[in-house]
């Protein structure tokens, strides 16, 4: 069932066991799992079926620190959430991403990759993915990895009919939970704002916040403030350890033979470090995206190479005469070290139309990440040269330690952390089952529970974690 307002929903007399906030990949997946288990669930979606400026305005906020996207641009507030502008790139976090790293504080998850692997077949169905091929070692340091460009499932569109026809799932559009009310043990209700006005309080036995990697922290921070700590009793880490995937053009490569690596439909191939290389260099994970260059760029690159390595340039020129296309741009995206100082706070000056404080995001890239960028490119370049697969040139701004450019990709629009998973209540917000520490009936879905970010796009892992949480919650509720 899908309702356009909370008023219409109330008239239907639906009695939910669980209330899910948000209809993005996490919220929709958990709702479908509960619905399939015969558990009545209501999904509150703050926006409508379509994009609107009015709805997006609730997402405005401020960033302090490094340059970042406007907060009302980097996410979407309507049915299906940010899957509506997702590019569809898929890969699951690596086994090594879940493990603690001695050289990077506060890394390591309380679960391993094996805990989400049982759900990957389901994830492949949801995201319409073929099977992943295993990583291919290029050297002891570098792996050739696969990142699948999927059809980019828009959860609102794909599952609208199924949700509408479901007797166990009620989706309520244009209905925003401004605040959860809690007594330190349980959430007792959610205060609502629907179609431009206060709409009363909704009760359910269980609540799951799936409002996104920025909004989950905002909702819980505000709710906790209003309930005097009654929603997140252990709130030291709430809003903290927020992470992105910084992304910049890192240089160029000339390859001996571009067909050496099977590229995808966009002529791109992806590379990541081995755990041993990360450990040796004491760096974070990273992904190098190799994109075929336009032909004039190849000539320019070879001219530059001729000043330094004439023999190599001459050989490359002869290859060009054979009409080989063999140069590439290198983009680097990397894992941010989890830092408590990268955090979401509530604005003291600005509120949205419902009176909820807007986000003030404090975000800075660390020296460890700067080293990851430089050493990662050196590692890749060294492998290319040692294996005689090609030669790499690192961009000057990276070699010279200049400031990050502000006219490039900047980051992946991947919002992770803020309600991270863990066992230490001082450094995490939810436990291994995504239940808020100290609360009996409050769970969190989505990338805000990520402890570390790995190097890959988060949606595949978000969906796997949502399948796992949906199954867990189904068992808990059924007892």
């Amino acid at each position, binding site marked *: 069932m899908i309702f356009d307002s909370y008023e219409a929903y109330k008239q239907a007399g639906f009695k939910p066991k669980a209330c899910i906030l948000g209809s993005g990949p996490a919220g929709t997946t958990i709702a479908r799992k509960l619905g399939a288990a015969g558990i009545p669930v209501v999904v509150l979606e703050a926006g409508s079926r379509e994009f609107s400026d009015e709805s997006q305005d609730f997402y405005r906020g401020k960033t302090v620190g490094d340059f970042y996207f406007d907060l009302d641009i980097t996410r979407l507030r309507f049915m299906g959430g940010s899957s509506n502008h997702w590019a569809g790139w898929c890969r699951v976090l690596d086994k090594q991403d879940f493990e603690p790293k001695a050289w990077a504080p506060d890394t390591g998850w309380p679960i391993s990759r094996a805990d989400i692997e049982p759900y990957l077949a389901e994830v492949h169905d949801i995201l319409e993915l073929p099977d992943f091929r295993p990583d291919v070692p290029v050297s002891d340091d570098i792996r050739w990895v696969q990142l699948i460009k999927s059809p980019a499932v828009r959860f609102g569109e794909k599952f609208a009919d199924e949700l509408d026809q479901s007797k166990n799932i009620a989706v309520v559009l244009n209905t925003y939970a401004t605040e959860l009310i809690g007594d330190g043990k349980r959430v007792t209700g959610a205060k609502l704002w629907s179609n431009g006005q206060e709409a009363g309080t909704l009760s359910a036995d269980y609540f799951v916040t799936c409002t996104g990697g920025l909004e989950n922290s905002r909702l819980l921070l505000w709710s906790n403030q209003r309930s005097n700590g009654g929603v997140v009793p252990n709130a030291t880490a709430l809003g903290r350890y927020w992470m992105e995937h910084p992304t910049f053009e890192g240089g160029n490569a000339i390859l001996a033979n571009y067909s050496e690596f099977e590229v995808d439909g966009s002529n791109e191939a992806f590379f990541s470090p081995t755990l041993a290389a990360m450990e040796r260099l004491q760096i974070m994970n990273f992904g190098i995206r190799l994109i075929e260059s336009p032909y004039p760029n190849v000539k320019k690159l070879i001219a530059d190479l001729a*000043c330094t*390595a004439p023999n190599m340039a001459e050989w490359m020129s002869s290859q060009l005469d054979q009409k080989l296309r063999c140069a590439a741009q290198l983009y680097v995206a990397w894992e941010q070290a989890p830092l408590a100082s990268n955090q979401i706070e509530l604005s003291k000056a600005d509120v949205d139309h419902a009176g909820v404080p807007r986000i003030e995001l404090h975000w800075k890239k660390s020296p460890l990440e700067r080293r990851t960028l430089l050493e990662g490119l050196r590692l890749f370049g060294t492998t290319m040269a040692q294996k005689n697969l090609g030669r790499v*040139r690192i961009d000057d701004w990276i070699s010279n330690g200049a400031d990050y450019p502000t006219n490039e990709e900047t980051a992946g629009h991947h919002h992770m952390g803020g309600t991270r998973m863990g066992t230490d209540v001082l450094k995490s917000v939810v436990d291994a089952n995504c239940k808020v520490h100290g609360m009996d009936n409050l769970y969190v879905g989505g990338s805000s529970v990520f402890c570390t970010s790995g190097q890959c796009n988060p949606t595949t892992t978000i969906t796997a974690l949502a399948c796992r949480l949906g199954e867990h919650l189904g068992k808990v509720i059924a007892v």
Partner: protein
Amino acid sequence: MKRMSRRAIVQALIALPALSLFRNRPVVAEPDEIVEINGWILRRSDLA
């Protein structure tokens, strides 16, 4: 601190040229050695 004897100083001075012989021994360049020049990551043999 104990003063060095004149004999020890002379012996040290005599030894110096011999030490410099070792120091100035030309390094044999490995053709597969990886070098970084002007941002390029190359094999030394590329520079020929």
